[in-house]
């Protein structure tokens, strides 16, 4: 069954037809956005991370009709000045990725982590990012990236 939904996508209003069985990743693909990637399809790998109403969720487990009226933000949301944000800069500078498939999820989750814990401990980083998997295992660099991003945000 199809239905009409309206939501805000990276600050712009969107209205679209979705099937009840579709998930948020498919809706985003319909909008030409591919940064949220369905990998495990069980909400375990974090590759499809999307921010809904300020909270990180697994796009693969979020049914499309549920985002009606929501504020949806993805990795493609550009920064006001068109540059990389401190988290993205830190990921580039520390080389905190290899294949890059999981990277959008890590960047979005790190932003959320720094909102909650501006100066996270090593333990807090490991706890917060435990739901994101990186098969290339760039984890040591990711931990450094989070620490660098925290330092950058602090100024």
């Amino acid at each position, binding site marked *: 069954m199809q239905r009409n939904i309206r939501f805000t996508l990276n600050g712009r209003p969107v209205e679209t037809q979705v*099937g009840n*069985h*579709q998930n948020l990743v498919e809706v985003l*693909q319909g909008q030409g*956005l*591919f*940064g*949220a*990637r369905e*990998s*495990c*399809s*069980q909400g*375990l*790998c974090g*590759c499809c991370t999307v921010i809904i109403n300020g909270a990180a969720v697994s796009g693969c487990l979020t049914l499309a009709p549920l985002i009606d009226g929501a504020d949806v933000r*993805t*990795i*493609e949301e550009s920064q006001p000045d068109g540059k*990389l944000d401190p988290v*993205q800069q830190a*990921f*580039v*500078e520390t*080389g905190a*990725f*290899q*294949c*890059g*498939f*999981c*990277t*959008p999820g890590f*960047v979005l989750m790190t932003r959320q982590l720094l909102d909650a814990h501006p100066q996270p401990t090593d333990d807090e*980083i*490991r*706890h917060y*990012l*435990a739901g*994101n*998997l*990186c*098969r*290339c*295992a*760039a*984890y*040591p*660099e*990711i*931990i450094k990236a989070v620490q660098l991003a925290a330092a950058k945000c602090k100024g």
Partner: protein
Amino acid sequence: MATTLGKTNSGAAFGRSIPRVEAQAKVTGKAEYVHNLRLPGMLYGKVHRSTVAHGRIRGIDVSAAKALPGVYAVYTAADIIKLIPEPYYGPAFHDQPILAVDKVHHVGEPVALVLAADPHVAEAAAQLIDVDYEELPAVFDEVEAMTSKAIVHEVLKPAGTFPDLKHLKGKRDTNIALDFHLRRGDAQKAFAEADHVFEHTFRTQQVLHVPLEPFVTVADPTPNQLVIHTASQSPSFVRIEIARLLGWAENKVRVKVPYLGGGFGAKLYIKTEALTAAAALLAGRPVKISLTMEEQFYQITKHAATLRIKSGVTNEGKVTARECEVWWNGGAYADIGPRVTQKSGFTAPGPYDIDHVSIDSYALYTNLPAAGALRGFGIPQLVWAYESHTDMIAKALKMDPLAIRRKNILREGRPQATGTLMRDAGIEKVLERLAQRMDWEKAFDKGGGAIRRGRGIAIGFKASISPTTSVAIVNVSADGSCMVYCSTVDMGQGSDTAMAQFAAEALGIPVESVTVVHPDTDVTPYDMATLGSRSTYHMGHAVKLAAEDARDKLMQLAKDVGLSAETTPIPDIFRKKYGMQAGNVVGVGSYIPSYTSPDAQGQTDNATPFWMIGATGAEVEVDTETGEFKITRLVNLVDVGRPVNPAIVETQISGATMMQLGFTLFERMDFDAGQCTNASLADYKIPGIRDVPLVMENEAVDMVQQSGPFGAKGVGESGTFGVSPAIASAIDDAVGVRLTSLPLTAEAVYRGLRAQAGKPLDE
């Protein structure tokens, strides 16, 4: 500012930790993957898979699937054969059908394909297909497969590409897809004369690659060509093999590869490409097949293996003879297993100087999902066995693990088991540096009470797959910018960045002015494949040669128009020649190393263009009340020659180590009658951020590969070698429990502790 040709080989581009060239695209989610690709009119394909491990297909009922509204087509082998009369592919054997023909060989084998514009419709329809099987006896264990009455393939069909497989053509009633033998000296005589003879058997489990971007291919039948967009590590192989299947010229098939979301050896040869290509041609429309995470468990895996090692040893700990028997569980299709059997088989005795060696290595067919190459090409399995064996000998002789290795280590200039002399192999250097970083000679706190501490070291080595070819083109534009055309696939290892560094270094221009063109077989020249840590060495050579060729041509061009290339900005040279910003200078480079095929005894004076060395030291804490253990320190040492990009090299070392840590501690495919029972990330755990040891140190020792481009060689696999045996030895050192099967679980340690206490647990 316009670029002038600078000095070549100045160290301005090579050896620097520049950020990856695609860094911005990856952190903004905009990097290109086949995953993202949608074409107008595209159909989605969903596969119906075998539910039995071994069976004859009596009938396939596709009527309900075809009747589902929205289904465009349903195909079985009967349809494929109309297009491709001999629908079998594979790099070593033509044994794998595009869709099952008459028989299925493992649970999860593709039997039918549904196409629909809506992937959900295709998926629903694939479930409606009903296949009637006559089940056949199946074989799952690699050692049983040697003598089993259950025969996976009635007739062996070597692909004809490898000379050492030709004798298997037409062979019947065997599961042995290759038997490799090496004899050096007289092992049996040496055993008889040895002070001690030790014999142990080790096991490794079946695991898999789990790239987070599962296999995906889009095939587009255009009027003049079949265009295949695929997440593949081997675009040149895909073009040649698809052209062969169709009976077409190579230039009628175009294969394009953007970035890969991980590969690790999974995305080699033909995976989803043949089925997608056939479906697109049959349908006359673009087709996309994306596997789910679950489906990856049926596509390709890493060999489970049984390894028996026997050594003759003197009272002083010198190994005089070694006999190795290795049985590789290749699953239902040979894939590249026969190469694993031979190319890895010949290093089975380890990096030790042993006069008398006997190796027998067998590639076996079984009714499990196929096994292929996974980050190490069989080496991690071998190192697991020979390094565990080394420590078991040391313990029996009351020798220190470092001392026994020092006594036997294969030193520079000495012959390896094949007879090839070791050159630029930092085995001793890596071992000594590891000992230093582990403070091995200092007293070690063994803990007390319930928590006991232990440590272990292990070292392994690997030859490069040889001989293989890489070709590259370097194109300098009239503004002085430069493009590198090569078919090396950047799957996360950073090859785009490395190739830009090679070209810039050889041309003498800034690395920022170089871009790397992604594999497109209409545009980028032949490359054997991105595998086995070969690209840095082979493609590095080809790119360097192409850049030198371009530099020579640019110098000549400048000379022709009366300018000095050293002092004139590159754009001015072109402007003087062509009167405007126009023209190109194109350099070409092609590289294949020298190689001598082994004789009947497995002997050759030139087995490999270079050696990769990797060692790991581990410190663990074991809870004697539960068997649980944690790794408190992991030190990884490798010889990569001169690192192209030290920061990326370090990421490669720790990434390889972490992957092997998963295979060491928890990853294992579980099977029930050939059915994988944990085919999801919910039940099959891969390492997460909390599994990173609290202390992990990585180092590339100071080495130069004299034959390598700017002294470099491969790095992608070396970090895997020593991990498993180092941890097992550390556990043994802590609590005296020696595990001989992977993975090393708390349960296995606890069972060992109970057995040690004379109170063994029931099975």
